[in-house]
């Protein structure tokens, strides 16, 4: 290209995946293939799948840890594990599920689906997307480096000081956790930025902000939340590492440090994080459920607003994790009320789902069963949260198995169930094959029954006075029988999860061919082939309603129709349409970057940097800084061919 293009009137054409233009698109967008292509790919679909697979691997690891713990707790006075082993297991179980499974799995969905839902050909920053995945992977591995040495983090996932300080925890356990969390924070932060910019810039023409699917609202809200929440925890962990290694005194009581400072910083992050790991999952249900109810979601606008409101309120409730720390009653009353108010946006969502089912004509697919199961688990997890929001009641419930029950209803009920339902729903889109429905229903019932048998009794154990994080308990307190039921139920739940994984493996090879839109769903991703071509859309679609594929069946006016066959061709290299933030009017042609190794190199160098810090190996740290600098320079080196083109 001799002259740099700064202006072009984009060609509007009619095209499909079989058109000659699509061959050009294919060659534009396809990567190198082979190992080289795999390592350098920036395709959002590829990255999304990697996120999903990696997150599920961590789910299995975290599940195995739980299985060992439940064996230890099945009876009073068990001696399967030493106290220290138990403490490392419960810590790593929490860390794994909350940080390495729950958000990454949703990032997987969102990375895969966002451009397809929005009618775009990629995320706003494809290389940043790759970086976000690689850093997540390396941070996950980093957090496990000391596990084989028997020195894994052992102070619970919220890692209270001073037990986490060097005086009481001299090994590398907590340093691994502290540095690993700072590293993981980088992944979360760049991923969040990518989602936000993608939403503001990459929607198909006509997809105004009030037409995006609820999953988009969920992930957007989670991403904005993360941008504000993650700095608090990265800072806290960095301060803790400084305290441990360099003798600062942020949390050192003997030098005037404050243990409660840790709790404030941690929960300012921790509570918004809870919403970050449930709001996108609720979005999956809000988008998937209507498909199987054969009608649009009841109350799109209130549900979208409730999503945002939940996160906004979520920043004002962190003290409800600290009701027993001796804060003034008047301050706690504020946080108690704020926590209870979250019932209101939550009930908007619940009644929307119930109304959608009630006024629809439900089709009982496996995905649908998981979504409906989710609704009832959401309610149970919600009301138990409402009980713990009441300060005086929480003074009894906090730190007990009641809270363990509550948080598992939230994380399994509101994250795992929608995620599994979401896999059933989008598996045909991702792989081109349907999952087995009969096996799917079996896995639902085994999971649903196993989950409730395993986790509901924890509420009762909590009220029977069983504190959380105890590795054993005496027989005379009478907690034995319920604990045995909990163990058996959770094993049943695990069998259900295994059935689900089995289904995935069998269906990958033998599943029925799906076709483009097996569920007759309404959103844009179903207008592409299954699996979608590497360029996503043969032409950039134009959107005229919230339910582009249901138009004509819902009584819109005829002259206002979405168009999937005719639109901007954009076939001169990797291109997609940039649109305005609110109304999504075509604005510029965005040139997307080619595949690159820089994200992988940068992520590796970051990981080495943190290993250097962990080992106090300053030359390693310095060397990786140099590589980071070089990789960033190569990445950010201005390229004229990547500048956007006015239309």
């Amino acid at each position, binding site marked *: 290209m001799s002259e740099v293009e700064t202006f072009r009137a984009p060609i509007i054409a009619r095209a499909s995946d079989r058109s000659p233009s699509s061959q050009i698109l294919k060659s534009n967008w396809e990567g190198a293939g082979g190992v080289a292509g795999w390592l350098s790919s920036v395709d959002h679909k590829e990255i999304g799948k990697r996120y999903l697979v990696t997150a599920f691997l961590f789910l299995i690891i975290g599940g195995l840890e739980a299985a060992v713990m439940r064996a230890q707790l099945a009876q009073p006075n068990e001696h399967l594990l030493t106290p220290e082993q138990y403490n490392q297991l419960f810590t790593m179980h929490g860390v794994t599920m909350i940080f390495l499974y729950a958000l990454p799995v949703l990032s997987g969905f969102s990375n895969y689906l966002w451009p397809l839902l929005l009618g775009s050909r990629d995320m706003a920053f494809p290389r940043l997307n790759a970086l976000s995945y690689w850093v997540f992977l390396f941070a996950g591995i980093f957090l496990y480096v000391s596990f084989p040495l028997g020195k894994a983090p052992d102070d619970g996932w919220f890692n209270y000081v*001073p037990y986490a300080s060097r005086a*009481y925890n001299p090994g590398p356990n907590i340093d691994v956790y502290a540095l690993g969390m700072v590293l993981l924070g980088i992944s979360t932060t760049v991923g969040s930025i990518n989602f936000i910019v993608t939403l503001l810039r990459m929607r198909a023409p006509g997809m105004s902000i009030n037409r995006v699917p609820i999953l988009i609202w969920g992930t957007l809200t989670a991403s904005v939340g993360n941008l504000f929440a993650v700095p608090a925890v990265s800072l806290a962990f960095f301060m803790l590492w400084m305290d441990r290694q360099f003798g600062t005194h942020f949390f050192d009581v003997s030098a005037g440090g404050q243990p409660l400072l840790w709790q404030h910083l941690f929960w300012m992050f921790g509570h918004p994080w809870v919403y970050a790991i449930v709001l996108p999952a609720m979005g999956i249900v809000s988008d998937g459920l209507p498909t199987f109810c054969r009608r649009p979601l009841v109350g799109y606008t209130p549900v979208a607003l409730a999503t945002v409101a939940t996160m906004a309120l979520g920043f004002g409730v962190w003290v409800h994790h600290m009701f027993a720390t001796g804060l003034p009653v008047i301050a706690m009353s504020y946080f108690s009320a704020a926590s209870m108010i979250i019932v209101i946006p939550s009930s908007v969502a619940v009644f929307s789902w119930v*109304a959608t089912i009630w006024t*629809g004509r439900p*089709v009982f697919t496996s995905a649908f069963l998981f979504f409906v199961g989710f609704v009832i688990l959401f309610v149970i997890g919600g009301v138990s949260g409402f*009980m713990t929001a009441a300060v005086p*009641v929480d003074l009894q419930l906090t730190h007990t198995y009641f809270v363990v029950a509550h948080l598992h209803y939230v994380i399994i009920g509101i994250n795992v169930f929608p995620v599994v339902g979401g896999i059933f729903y989008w598996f045909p889109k991702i792989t081109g094959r349907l999952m087995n429905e009969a096996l799917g229903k079996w896995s639902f019932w085994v999971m649903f029954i196993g989950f409730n048998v395993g986790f509901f009794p924890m509420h009762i154990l909590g*009220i029977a006075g069983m504190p*959380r994080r105890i590795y054993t308990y005496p027989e005379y307190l009478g907690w034995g029988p319920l604990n045995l039921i909990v163990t058996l139920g959770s094993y049943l739940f695990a069998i259900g999860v295994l059935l689900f994984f089995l289904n995935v493996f069998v269906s990958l090879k033998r599943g029925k061919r799906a076709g483009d839109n097996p569920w007759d769903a309404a959103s844009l991703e179903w207008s592409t082939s299954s699996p979608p071509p590497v360029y996503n859309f043969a032409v950039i679609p134009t959107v005229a309603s919230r339910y582009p594929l249901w138009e004509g069946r819902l*009584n819109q006016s005829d002259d206002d129709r979405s168009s999937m066959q005719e639109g901007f061709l954009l076939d001169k290299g990797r291109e997609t349409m940039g649109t305005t933030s609110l109304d999504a009017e075509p604005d510029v042609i965005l040139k997307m970057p080619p595949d690159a190794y820089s994200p992988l190199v940068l992520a590796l160098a970051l990981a080495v940097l943190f290993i250097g810090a962990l080992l106090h190996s300053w030359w390693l740290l310095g060397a990786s800084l140099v590589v980071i600098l070089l990789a960033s320079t190569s990445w950010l080196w201005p390229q004229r061919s990547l500048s956007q083109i006015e239309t």
Partner: protein
Amino acid sequence: MSYWHTYGPAGDPITKLGWGLGIVSIVVTVVIAVMLLGGLFRRRTKRAPDDAQLAVSREGGGMGWIYVGVGVSTVILIICMGWTLVTSASVSHPPSTPALTVQVTASQWWWSLRYTSDDMSRTFITANEIHIPVGQPVRFELASVDVIHSFWVPQLGGKMDVIPGQTNVTWLQADKPGVYRGQCAVFCGAEHALMALEVIADTPRDFRAWQDDQLRETPISSSATVRAGQKVFQAHCAACHTIRGSDAAGIVGPDLTHLMSRRTLAAGLFPNTQGNLAGWIAAPQGLKPGAQMPDHLVSGTDLTAVLGYLNTLQ
């Protein structure tokens, strides 16, 4: 440990509120489950999911559900919030000024107790077993020498964290004589699971008698075997434990002046029997791995001697 029922004004209003919110929660869950089931089977369709016909012909509709559902939820919520605030206020302060203050110092993994009094001669230290007079509020000042713990006697009231660098204050009152078990509730390290305590609510007369007993110093025994045991104790145990009236004045471990008056050993680990006591002295690390008390290589004769001495600490 079960707090379905509580036994004093620090806990009872919480228990009432807990039951109330619990019942509201169960009713809400059942009502929504019924609506959900109704919706599921009302117009369930067996037709293939790719049936082109939609259930509605326009996008809106169904909003009544949200208006009514959220409206009703909000009303219930506000009532519950009011009730919560009232309860909060009522348990935050005792009904009358406590006559008795106990300073509780938590450490990994046991509780030191200091009974204060305006009259310094009536101040004394004990461990792991709290006696309180029935029917009177007792004030607890909570401090920690190491990490965060939480002071919790569920059948008498809610918990209060014990945080190093600050003194949290709480209160309890038992309206019925009896033994109320407590346990540390915030994860505090290896033996978090084995950090229990007992609150024993005595009639005011029994409490007074107990207090007088605790104030006594151990008399010097005339028995030679006891004296031999005391020598072993002084050699092996006195660096950490105090026995008032003797030379043993360690402060790392529990005060043992009236060890034999206590019901349990090692922070509620097991009943205070001769066998358990001997086992604990011989091999604490086998029973509570990680505890501060090391395994002493005491000989059988030393063990017998020291047990003989400890038995005099009534």
